[in-house]
């Protein structure tokens, strides 16, 4: 399927040049990093930009680094880069786990985490973990720099707070000081290129504070705040898990589509929560618990 729509292509070498182009073209421009989503949207004629701005010339966005107690993931960091990073694997394991679950190596070599949260398709694998880490989105434009908490970032399927003249420079994650563990749980039909039917991230700290976020079961990712509050101070024992699972129905609003029914997603989210909490608890106790990739549907 060729792309029928003609567009201009620019690959700016400086951030100033890049932001100038965005400011001049506004909605007429689209930003290209890995392009694994954008190329499809162009093929299917879902977008008809005048200008495609390739940001791969801007080396400053290629970095994964810790600055002042904050992990910074640049706009050009691919999922393969994240998987190859010892820092991510040793200190942000749920993030590493979610990156590992994205598609397959040929996609992960190009696709970026920033692109994933900019496309903001409800089944994205990056969002639940980032929501649990209370990540911040760093935006830059000719007007200056701006930080948006990820909890406010997603406003609808495929819609974010990004304005036409803004570039997402990166993702910032404040490092959690207290001892903690976490997990990323994904439900798919098979390993490989499948999209999540539902996904879930959990963080749990040694003082029994919880952060829980569901993805792919509502228009935007859902932080399960009532469950987090219910669980506060409790260990995930069987009766506690059952009560937490019973609260899931009021929080998420899954749809029926080609990949799973509403009822199945609702049911499996409770299972995922219970298994996820159990695994997180084991990991917190220093056990090397398995990945939770659930195949079903």
């Amino acid at each position, binding site marked *: 399927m060729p792309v029928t729509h003609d567009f201009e292509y620019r*690959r700016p070498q400086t951030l100033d040049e890049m932001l100038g182009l965005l400011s001049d073209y506004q909605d007429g421009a689209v930003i290209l990093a890995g392009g694994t989503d954008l190329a499809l949207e162009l093929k299917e004629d879902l977008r008809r930009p005048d200008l495609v701005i390739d940001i791969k010339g801007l080396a400053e966005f290629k970095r994964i680094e810790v600055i002042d107690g904050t992990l910074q993931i640049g706009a050009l960091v691919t999922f393969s880069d994240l998987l190859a990073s010892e820092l991510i694997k040793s200190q942000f394991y749920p993030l590493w786990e979610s990156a590992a679950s994205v598609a397959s190596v040929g996609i992960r070599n190009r696709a970026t985490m920033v692109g994933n949260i900019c496309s903001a398709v409800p089944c994205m694998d990056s969002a639940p973990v980032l929501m649990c880490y209370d990540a911040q989105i760093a935006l830059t434009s000719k007007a200056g720099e701006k930080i948006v908490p990820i909890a406010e970032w997603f406003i609808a399927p495929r819609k974010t707070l990004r304005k036409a003249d803004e570039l997402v420079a990166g993702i910032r994650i404040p490092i959690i000081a207290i001892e903690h563990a976490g997990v990323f749980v994904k439900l798919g039909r098979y390993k490989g290129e499948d999209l999540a039917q539902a996904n879930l991230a959990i963080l749990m700290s040694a003082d029994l504070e919880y952060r829980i976020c569901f993805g792919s079961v509502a228009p935007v990712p859902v932080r399960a705040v009532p469950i987090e509050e219910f669980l506060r101070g409790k260990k995930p024992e069987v009766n506690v898990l059952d009560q937490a699972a019973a609260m899931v129905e009021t929080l998420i609003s899954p749809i029926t589509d080609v990949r799973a029914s509403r009822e199945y997603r609702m049911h499996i989210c409770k299972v995922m929560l219970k298994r996820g909490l159990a695994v997180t608890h084991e990991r917190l106790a220093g056990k090397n618990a398995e990945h939770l990739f659930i195949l079903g549907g």
Partner: protein
Amino acid sequence: MRQVTITLNGESRSCLVKPNETLLDVLRDKLGVKSPKCGCDHGDCGSCAVLLNGKSVRSCLIFAIECEGMEIRTLEGVSGDKLSALQEAFIEFNSFQCGYCAPGVIITATELLETNPHPSLDEIKEALSGNLCRCTGYTPIFDAIMAVTKKEDE
């Protein structure tokens, strides 16, 4: 139209492209390299895989214009004058039937063995999870790759 120059299988090649032409179409139709195949055209099936600066990518999801100055290796560049050990093993194990997925599988497996010469079966399955084959059920493909890793041990 803009001139794009790439290193294709070790040779410097140039051609004129429109910004909306995919790398897959340019490789096949303008540069005459026919091993990358168009399967799903959506990045799901892996039959268009090529190595871009040494990493496997979906050439159907990349515009040729993005590749200025880069190095691209296709199946034609993997074999060179004679078949690679991996290709020999695929023949020995009768790994393919129709062969449509073969170039993508060989590219992906080549990348795997270049980065991890002794993968476990699970690692092989994970690496090839984005290459769909509708003929074989995958077993003879995995067997061939396992055999190559063992041969290197000897």
